[in-house]
Protein backbone atom coordinates (compact mmCIF):
# COMPACT_ATOMS: atom_id res chain seq x y z
CA UNK A 1 0.00 0.00 0.00
CA UNK A 2 0.96 3.63 -0.30
CA UNK A 3 0.49 6.71 1.87
CA UNK A 4 -3.06 7.30 0.67
CA UNK A 5 -4.03 4.07 2.41
CA UNK A 6 -1.49 3.68 5.24
CA UNK A 7 -2.01 7.22 6.52
CA UNK A 8 -5.19 8.76 5.11
CA UNK A 9 -7.47 5.71 5.03
CA UNK A 10 -6.19 4.55 8.43
CA UNK A 11 -6.83 8.00 9.92
CA UNK A 12 -10.29 8.16 8.34
CA UNK A 13 -11.21 4.69 9.63
CA UNK A 14 -9.84 5.43 13.11
CA UNK A 15 -12.00 8.53 13.47
CA UNK A 16 -15.05 6.67 12.09
CA UNK A 17 -14.37 3.95 14.66
CA UNK A 18 -14.80 6.56 17.38
CA UNK A 19 -11.11 7.16 18.14
CA UNK A 20 -10.44 10.76 19.04
CA UNK A 21 -8.21 13.07 17.00
CA UNK A 22 -4.85 12.74 18.78
CA UNK A 23 -4.68 8.93 19.00
CA UNK A 24 -6.17 8.60 15.50
CA UNK A 25 -3.32 10.74 14.17
CA UNK A 26 -0.74 8.72 16.13
CA UNK A 27 -2.03 5.38 14.85
CA UNK A 28 -2.12 6.61 11.24
CA UNK A 29 1.30 8.30 11.53
CA UNK A 30 2.91 5.13 12.88
CA UNK A 31 1.22 3.14 10.14
CA UNK A 32 2.77 5.34 7.43
CA UNK A 33 6.11 6.00 9.16
CA UNK A 34 6.78 2.26 8.99
CA UNK A 35 7.46 2.87 5.27
CA UNK A 36 9.81 5.77 5.98
CA UNK A 37 12.24 4.66 8.68
CA UNK A 38 15.03 3.56 6.40
CA UNK A 39 18.24 4.65 8.08
CA UNK A 40 19.43 2.33 10.87
CA UNK A 41 22.26 4.74 11.71
CA UNK A 42 19.75 7.37 12.77
CA UNK A 43 17.24 5.16 14.53
CA UNK A 44 19.02 1.96 15.56
CA UNK A 45 16.45 0.00 13.59
CA UNK A 46 14.96 0.21 10.12
CA UNK A 47 11.43 -0.71 9.14
CA UNK A 48 11.80 -0.21 5.38
CA UNK A 49 14.59 -0.48 2.86
CA UNK A 50 14.44 2.06 0.08
CA UNK A 51 17.59 0.91 -1.62
CA UNK A 52 16.81 -1.96 -3.95
CA UNK A 53 20.46 -3.04 -3.70
CA UNK A 54 19.97 -3.83 -0.01
CA UNK A 55 17.05 -6.09 -0.82
CA UNK A 56 19.40 -8.94 -1.71
CA UNK A 57 20.80 -8.86 1.84
CA UNK A 58 19.29 -11.84 3.70
CA UNK A 59 19.15 -9.94 6.97
CA UNK A 60 17.28 -7.04 5.37
CA UNK A 61 14.85 -9.52 3.82
CA UNK A 62 14.13 -11.13 7.18
CA UNK A 63 14.25 -8.28 9.68
CA UNK A 64 12.85 -5.50 7.48
CA UNK A 65 10.85 -6.86 4.55
CA UNK A 66 9.37 -9.99 6.14
CA UNK A 67 8.94 -8.56 9.64
CA UNK A 68 7.14 -5.37 8.59
CA UNK A 69 5.79 -5.90 5.06
CA UNK A 70 5.69 -9.59 4.11
CA UNK A 71 4.50 -11.58 7.12
CA UNK A 72 4.09 -15.19 5.97
CA UNK A 73 0.65 -16.72 5.71
CA UNK A 74 -0.64 -19.98 7.11
CA UNK A 75 -0.38 -22.41 4.22
CA UNK A 76 2.53 -21.69 1.87
CA UNK A 77 5.78 -21.36 3.73
CA UNK A 78 7.03 -17.78 3.63
CA UNK A 79 4.48 -16.57 1.08
CA UNK A 80 2.14 -13.80 2.26
CA UNK A 81 -1.58 -14.49 2.66
CA UNK A 82 -3.97 -11.69 3.45
CA UNK A 83 -5.24 -11.42 7.02
CA UNK A 84 -3.34 -14.56 8.04
CA UNK A 85 -3.30 -15.85 11.61
CA UNK A 86 0.27 -14.54 12.03
CA UNK A 87 -0.57 -10.99 10.99
CA UNK A 88 -3.76 -11.00 13.06
CA UNK A 89 -1.70 -12.09 16.06
CA UNK A 90 0.65 -9.15 15.51
CA UNK A 91 -2.29 -6.73 15.56
CA UNK A 92 -3.86 -8.34 18.60
CA UNK A 93 -0.57 -8.17 20.52
CA UNK A 94 -0.24 -4.48 19.63
CA UNK A 95 -3.72 -3.49 20.76
CA UNK A 96 -3.52 -1.09 23.70
CA UNK A 97 -0.68 0.99 22.31
CA UNK A 98 -1.32 3.54 19.56
CA UNK A 99 2.12 3.42 17.96
CA UNK A 100 2.43 -0.36 18.09
CA UNK A 101 -1.05 -0.68 16.66
CA UNK A 102 -0.15 1.64 13.78
CA UNK A 103 2.92 -0.47 12.92
CA UNK A 104 0.97 -3.74 13.15
CA UNK A 105 -1.84 -2.32 10.99
CA UNK A 106 0.78 -1.47 8.36
CA UNK A 107 1.83 -5.12 8.26
CA UNK A 108 -1.81 -6.23 8.18
CA UNK A 109 -2.60 -3.88 5.27
CA UNK A 110 0.48 -5.02 3.36
CA UNK A 111 -0.66 -8.63 3.80
CA UNK A 112 -3.45 -7.77 1.35
CA UNK A 113 -1.39 -5.92 -1.28
CA UNK A 114 1.62 -8.25 -1.01
CA UNK A 115 -0.39 -11.46 -1.13
CA UNK A 116 1.36 -14.35 -2.95
CA UNK A 117 4.78 -12.68 -2.74
CA UNK A 118 7.41 -13.44 -0.11
CA UNK A 119 10.05 -11.27 1.52
CA UNK A 120 12.89 -13.60 0.54
CA UNK A 121 14.86 -13.54 -2.71
CA UNK A 122 13.30 -16.57 -4.35
CA UNK A 123 11.76 -17.93 -7.54
CA UNK A 124 8.21 -17.58 -6.31
CA UNK A 125 8.57 -13.79 -6.73
CA UNK A 126 9.89 -14.00 -10.31
CA UNK A 127 7.32 -12.40 -12.60
CA UNK A 128 9.34 -12.22 -15.83
CA UNK A 129 11.89 -14.44 -17.59
CA UNK A 130 15.57 -13.58 -17.35
CA UNK A 131 15.70 -12.07 -20.86
CA UNK A 132 12.86 -9.63 -20.14
CA UNK A 133 14.10 -6.21 -18.97
CA UNK A 134 11.21 -6.07 -16.50
CA UNK A 135 12.78 -8.98 -14.68
CA UNK A 136 15.91 -6.94 -13.96
CA UNK A 137 15.12 -6.17 -10.28
CA UNK A 138 15.92 -8.99 -7.84
CA UNK A 139 13.08 -11.45 -7.23
CA UNK A 140 12.45 -10.11 -3.73
CA UNK A 141 8.90 -9.27 -2.69
CA UNK A 142 7.06 -7.57 -5.55
CA UNK A 143 10.18 -5.75 -6.80
CA UNK A 144 9.67 -6.95 -10.37
CA UNK A 145 6.15 -5.50 -10.43
CA UNK A 146 7.53 -2.19 -9.07
CA UNK A 147 4.68 -0.42 -7.19
CA UNK A 148 1.75 -1.93 -9.10
CA UNK A 149 0.52 -4.22 -6.28
CA UNK A 150 0.46 -1.24 -3.90
CA UNK A 151 -1.63 1.17 -6.02
CA UNK A 152 -5.13 0.81 -4.63
CA UNK A 153 -6.91 1.92 -7.81
CA UNK A 154 -4.99 -0.47 -10.08
CA UNK A 155 -6.19 -3.57 -11.86
CA UNK A 156 -3.36 -5.74 -13.17
CA UNK A 157 -2.56 -9.23 -14.36
CA UNK A 158 -0.16 -11.27 -12.26
CA UNK A 159 2.32 -12.63 -14.84
CA UNK A 160 3.00 -15.70 -12.66
CA UNK A 161 -0.60 -16.92 -12.76
CA UNK A 162 -2.27 -14.95 -15.56
CA UNK A 163 -4.97 -13.97 -13.08
CA UNK A 164 -6.39 -10.46 -12.89
CA UNK A 165 -5.95 -8.74 -9.54
CA UNK A 166 -8.29 -5.87 -8.78
CA UNK A 167 -6.59 -3.78 -6.14
CA UNK A 168 -9.79 -1.81 -5.48
CA UNK A 169 -11.46 -4.95 -4.13
CA UNK A 170 -8.32 -5.91 -2.22
CA UNK A 171 -8.07 -2.42 -0.66
CA UNK A 172 -11.73 -2.41 0.36
CA UNK A 173 -11.26 -5.71 2.17
CA UNK A 174 -8.09 -4.38 3.82
CA UNK A 175 -10.06 -1.32 4.93
CA UNK A 176 -12.86 -3.48 6.34
CA UNK A 177 -10.45 -5.56 8.42
CA UNK A 178 -8.52 -2.46 9.55
CA UNK A 179 -11.80 -0.85 10.60
CA UNK A 180 -12.88 -3.91 12.57
CA UNK A 181 -9.65 -3.79 14.60
CA UNK A 182 -9.92 -0.04 15.17
CA UNK A 183 -13.50 -0.48 16.26
CA UNK A 184 -12.39 -3.11 18.75
CA UNK A 185 -9.61 -0.78 19.91
CA UNK A 186 -12.14 1.98 20.57
CA UNK A 187 -14.29 -0.31 22.71
CA UNK A 188 -16.64 -1.45 20.00
CA UNK A 189 -18.32 1.69 18.79
CA UNK A 190 -21.37 1.05 16.54
CA UNK A 191 -20.48 -0.67 13.25
CA UNK A 192 -20.65 1.96 10.50
CA UNK A 193 -18.99 -0.14 7.78
CA UNK A 194 -22.16 -0.30 5.69
CA UNK A 195 -21.95 3.46 5.18
CA UNK A 196 -18.18 3.63 4.93
CA UNK A 197 -17.73 1.00 2.19
CA UNK A 198 -19.47 2.86 -0.69
CA UNK A 199 -17.61 6.07 0.19
CA UNK A 200 -14.22 4.36 0.10
CA UNK A 201 -15.13 2.33 -2.98
CA UNK A 202 -15.75 5.55 -4.88
CA UNK A 203 -12.46 7.06 -3.72
CA UNK A 204 -10.47 3.90 -4.54
CA UNK A 205 -11.69 3.98 -8.13
CA UNK A 206 -9.92 7.30 -8.80
CA UNK A 207 -6.79 6.59 -10.83
CA UNK A 208 -4.75 9.73 -10.23
CA UNK A 209 -3.00 9.56 -6.84
CA UNK A 210 -3.45 13.19 -5.76
CA UNK A 211 -7.15 13.19 -6.65
CA UNK A 212 -7.65 9.88 -4.84
CA UNK A 213 -5.88 11.19 -1.75
CA UNK A 214 -8.01 14.33 -1.80
CA UNK A 215 -11.18 12.27 -2.12
CA UNK A 216 -10.17 10.31 0.99
CA UNK A 217 -9.37 13.56 2.84
CA UNK A 218 -12.80 14.90 1.86
CA UNK A 219 -14.39 11.95 3.68
CA UNK A 220 -12.69 12.97 6.94
CA UNK A 221 -14.32 15.32 9.40
CA UNK A 222 -10.97 17.12 9.68
CA UNK A 223 -10.30 18.07 6.07
CA UNK A 224 -7.12 19.87 7.10
CA UNK A 225 -5.41 16.58 7.88
CA UNK A 226 -2.03 16.35 6.13
CA UNK A 227 0.66 13.75 6.72
CA UNK A 228 3.46 16.31 6.49
CA UNK A 229 2.03 18.39 9.35
CA UNK A 230 1.26 15.38 11.53
CA UNK A 231 4.75 13.98 10.91
CA UNK A 232 6.38 17.29 11.80
CA UNK A 233 4.40 17.38 15.04
CA UNK A 234 4.69 13.75 16.13
CA UNK A 235 8.22 12.73 15.10
CA UNK A 236 10.02 14.78 17.78
CA UNK A 237 7.60 13.58 20.47
CA UNK A 238 7.32 9.92 19.55
CA UNK A 239 10.52 9.02 17.73
CA UNK A 240 11.84 6.97 20.65
CA UNK A 241 8.44 5.43 21.31
CA UNK A 242 8.28 4.39 17.66
CA UNK A 243 11.73 2.79 17.83
CA UNK A 244 10.75 0.76 20.90
CA UNK A 245 7.46 -0.25 19.33
CA UNK A 246 9.22 -1.28 16.10
CA UNK A 247 11.68 -3.44 18.01
CA UNK A 248 8.86 -5.11 19.89
CA UNK A 249 7.08 -5.71 16.58
CA UNK A 250 10.27 -7.20 15.13
CA UNK A 251 10.64 -9.51 18.13
CA UNK A 252 7.05 -10.70 17.85
CA UNK A 253 7.29 -11.15 14.10
CA UNK A 254 10.43 -13.26 14.45
CA UNK A 255 8.79 -15.42 17.12
CA UNK A 256 5.83 -15.97 14.80
CA UNK A 257 8.18 -16.96 11.95
CA UNK A 258 10.46 -19.20 13.99
CA UNK A 259 8.67 -22.42 13.03
CA UNK A 260 8.65 -21.88 9.24
CA UNK A 261 11.00 -24.37 7.70
CA UNK A 262 10.90 -24.41 3.91
CA UNK A 263 14.04 -23.24 2.19
CA UNK A 264 13.89 -20.60 -0.57
CA UNK A 265 15.06 -21.85 -3.95
CA UNK A 266 17.66 -19.15 -4.67
Amino acid at each position, binding site marked *: MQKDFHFYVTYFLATRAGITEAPAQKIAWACQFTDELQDPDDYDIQTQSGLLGNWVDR*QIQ*LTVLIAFHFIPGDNSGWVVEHNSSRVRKLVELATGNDIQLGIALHTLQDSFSHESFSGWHEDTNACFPWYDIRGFPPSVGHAEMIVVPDIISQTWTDPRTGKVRDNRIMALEAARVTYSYLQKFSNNEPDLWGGIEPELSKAFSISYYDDRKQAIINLCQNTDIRYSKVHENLLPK*YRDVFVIAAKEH*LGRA*MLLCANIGSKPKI
Partner: protein
Amino acid sequence: MNENNDFTQSTSESAKQKALDAIDKSNAYGIIKEILDRHG
Protein backbone atom coordinates in the same frame (compact mmCIF):
# COMPACT_ATOMS: atom_id res chain seq x y z
CA MET B 1 -9.55 6.30 24.11
CA ASN B 2 -6.88 6.35 26.70
CA GLU B 3 -4.26 8.94 25.89
CA ASN B 4 -1.85 7.17 28.21
CA ASN B 5 -1.68 4.06 26.10
CA ASP B 6 1.80 4.85 24.90
CA PHE B 7 5.00 4.69 26.83
CA THR B 8 5.72 8.01 28.42
CA GLN B 9 8.08 10.14 26.40
CA SER B 10 11.59 9.32 27.43
CA THR B 11 15.14 10.33 26.76
CA SER B 12 16.94 8.81 23.84
CA GLU B 13 19.28 6.72 26.00
CA SER B 14 16.60 5.23 28.23
CA ALA B 15 14.44 4.59 25.17
CA LYS B 16 17.30 2.73 23.53
CA GLN B 17 17.81 0.67 26.67
CA LYS B 18 14.11 -0.17 26.80
CA ALA B 19 14.22 -1.18 23.16
CA LEU B 20 17.24 -3.40 23.73
CA ASP B 21 15.58 -4.96 26.78
CA ALA B 22 12.42 -5.58 24.79
CA ILE B 23 14.21 -7.26 21.93
CA ASP B 24 16.45 -9.29 24.26
CA LYS B 25 13.39 -10.46 26.18
CA SER B 26 11.82 -11.78 23.00
CA ASN B 27 15.06 -13.59 22.02
CA ALA B 28 14.57 -12.06 18.57
CA TYR B 29 18.31 -11.95 17.90
CA GLY B 30 18.60 -15.67 18.55
CA ILE B 31 15.66 -16.42 16.28
CA ILE B 32 16.96 -14.11 13.53
CA LYS B 33 20.34 -15.87 13.62
CA GLU B 34 18.69 -19.29 13.60
CA ILE B 35 16.46 -18.45 10.61
CA LEU B 36 19.33 -16.84 8.70
CA ASP B 37 21.53 -19.87 9.36
CA ARG B 38 18.77 -22.08 8.01
CA HIS B 39 18.07 -19.91 4.94
CA GLY B 40 21.46 -18.32 4.32
